[in-house]
């Protein structure tokens, strides 16, 4: 699982951090997405998938097979 983020598409709603706090964070200055772990461990797959589904701006993308 490889995670990509596009801060340009991020609207700073913080949904990814709520869903997967070990993988995503928010920039202090403008609240946009910060990727903490581009290759998160497999046991976080569901949390990451939730973050993708919750992202209102479509700023998160998964590579190498999307779980569920």
């Amino acid at each position, binding site marked *: 699982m490889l995670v990509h983020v596009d801060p340009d*598409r991020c609207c700073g709603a913080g949904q990814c951090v709520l869903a997967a706090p070990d993988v995503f964070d928010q920039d202090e200055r403008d609240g946009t997405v910060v990727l903490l772990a581009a290759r998160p461990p497999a046991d976080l797959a569901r949390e990451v998938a939730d973050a993708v589904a919750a992202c*209102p*701006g479509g700023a998160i993308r998964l590579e190498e097979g999307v779980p569920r």
Partner: protein
Amino acid sequence: MATAAPATSHPAAAHPATSHPAPRGACPFAPPPAYQQAVRDEPVTRVALWDGAPCWLVTRHQDTRDVLADPRFSADAARPGFPFLSAAARQIGAGKTSFIRMDDPEHSRLRRMLTGDFTLRKTAALRPAIQQVADRLFAAMTTGRTRADLVADFALPLPSLVICLLLGVPYEDHEFFQRCSRSLLNRDSPVEEVLAAQDALTEYLDTLTDSKRGNPDDGILSRLVERGELPTEEIGAMGRLLLIAGHETTANMTALSVLALLRHPDQLAHLRAHPEATPAAVEELLRWLSIVQTGVTRVAVEDVEVGGVLIRAGEGVICQLNTANRDEDRYPDGDTLDLTRDTRRHVAFGFGVHQCLGQPLARLELEIALDTLLRGLPDLRLAVPFEEIRFRHEMTVYGIETLPVTW
């Protein structure tokens, strides 16, 4: 992008049978029965607005997310065909508005001046300050008393005090701005009254913003002034948006949540037994109540198919959040309030790039409010028969006028 059709062209199916907003049925917490019927029979359906103009109503969960995430649907009220929910809204929409009625990249540029103030971390750091406000209000409400109006004594002042603190607006002026925002959100207000309220609030915030120029504080208005990128009226428009959104929504959610719990004793008992489940309870209450009862408005800027229906450029769309949040496909037995259910992906805060900026703050305030009330008042109950509670059907944001409680 395709050119939008003129606003006056109402295509076929020009006389929809259902109006918007449709009346609620026997259960004051449930969406209008006509819309719940639409979810089953015709999920993307035609409704007639106040002036008879037809508009598409999107009622299902996935369709709502699709529309709100799709840049081919514009939030810009100046575009031809944009659906206005009242005559006053049409007049206001034609003038200077905040970024809520803009599209990217302009929307994003302005919104990002605020997103740093509403991160999860920044918001979480406010917990002690908000708890302090809640404790103070709670003490004032309960000391030497056994009865109160939960709206006036707790649910409304809590978020009002907090947003004033964040923005740098003097709370002493709360009667003024609460009155203005009530007029602005009431679809039955006479047009002149709404426009006067809009002007008064605009002038108030412009003057306040200007006063920060020589006399800065820690508030958001002051910080926007210090950035030096925006003229006074744009800062004022942002302030107006935050001030209204910051207190009306959370106040109504708090009062309705308490009422919903009192009407569902099993759920209330669950929450009392599991205070750690408050965040999950808040999510379910957000889903079940979905208080933005008039939905979210957009206009198509290209022809787009939604749920098998072709929506043409220049046609208006309303995403009906309360039906989307009870869509059985996403939330089995969605009409049932169940604080233990999986509420992920609810759209109570909208979806897409306009999704509520203040949602971490709203969640935190609701958690603190419920926790403070339920912990402090183990015998909390209604002081009047449920039938006497007056629901705010005419407001953009659903709520109740007063909530007489005793303990």
